């Protein structure tokens, strides 16, 4: 009889532990972001035509030209992409080379977007079927990748870049250049 009671307490303890686990997990903020599994791997081969006349297109070879870069995934139809524009401009002003991929966009829309929000991009590739987005494991716009001089993805920033993200991205870029 004594042993049975111990058994019952064990069941209660297991149940309480489960409850505690649920409480812990449920109280954590929900994280909807899907991290790319390509971090630490080279950017797969691709070649995109130019999204606008004033800038050349983008290929994987451009990302492996020896200098670390920021690769910005954006679209003219994406509201947060407009919100991050001043901070991309700030990153460029502080010496970052930024190349971009425009997702599912028309040349005239991209041109109008750049006209309105500024153009910090050295190259802009047009990704009409989100193919490059899938290649690098990006799951939305905007996203910004740090790519080192050998074309290896070193860091992924999901969502719009805010003021507080600028120093962090510059730091990641510096690390990628070492």
């Amino acid at each position, binding site marked *: 009889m004594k042993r049975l009671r111990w058994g019952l307490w064990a069941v209660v303890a297991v149940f309480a532990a489960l409850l505690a686990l649920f409480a812990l997990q449920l109280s954590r903020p929900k994280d*909807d972001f*899907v*991290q*790319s*599994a*390509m971090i630490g791997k080279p950017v797969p081969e691709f070649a995109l035509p130019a999204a606008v006349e004033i800038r050349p297109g983008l290929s994987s070879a451009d990302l492996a030209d020896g200098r670390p870069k920021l690769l910005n995934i954006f*679209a003219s*139809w*994406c*509201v*947060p992409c407009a*919100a991050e524009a001043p901070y991309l401009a700030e990153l460029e002003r502080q010496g970052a080379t930024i190349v971009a991929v425009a*997702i*599912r*966009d*028309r040349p005239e*829309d991209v041109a109008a977007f750049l006209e309105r929000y500024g153009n910090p991009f050295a190259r802009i590739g047009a990704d*009409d*079927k*989100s*193919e490059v*987005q*899938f*290649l*690098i*494991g990006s*799951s*939305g*716009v*905007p996203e910004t990748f740090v790519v080192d001089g050998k074309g290896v993805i070193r860091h992924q920033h*999901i*969502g*719009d870049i805010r003021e507080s993200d600028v120093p962090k991205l510059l730091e990641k870029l510096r690390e990628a250049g070492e």
Partner: protein
Amino acid sequence: MSPSLVVPDLIRDRWPLGRSGRPAVPAFAGTTLLAGIALLMALLAAPVAAQDSLPPAPYAYQQLDDPKLEAQAQALMQTLRCLKCQSQSIADSDAPMAGDMRHQVRSRLMAGDRPEEIRDWLIDRYGDYVSYEPRVTSATWPLFALPLVLFVVALLVVARRLRKRA
């Protein structure tokens, strides 16, 4: 809700001005004039509500000619997660990105890839989360092992009780 109230949320959630971003219009806003203005504003807002202006990728909504391949595509698409609307499969979702993923699935099947190769290709890029099909991995094996363990324990308990009674 006015559009200006919607935008900060959209920025936080990384959503484009999409289907859900369309402002709700008070259809009967007191006077007919107000209703007329509201209707006019709704019509003006409609172009803004577009997610993007490109047509869907060729195989986003187009089935494959070979029914066997299309059946494989359907089965696979039912078990791949839409990354933009994460509780839907890419077969269920109308998000442009889901359409582009369906295009990937169908064109890769046509090119001769097997369904599981396509799933692995996506898992290589997005992790296990992109697949709805449970896999036994170093992180998930307890989920598969635990029912077996509990079953064995239950058998032992029953066996002991029966032996005691006998």
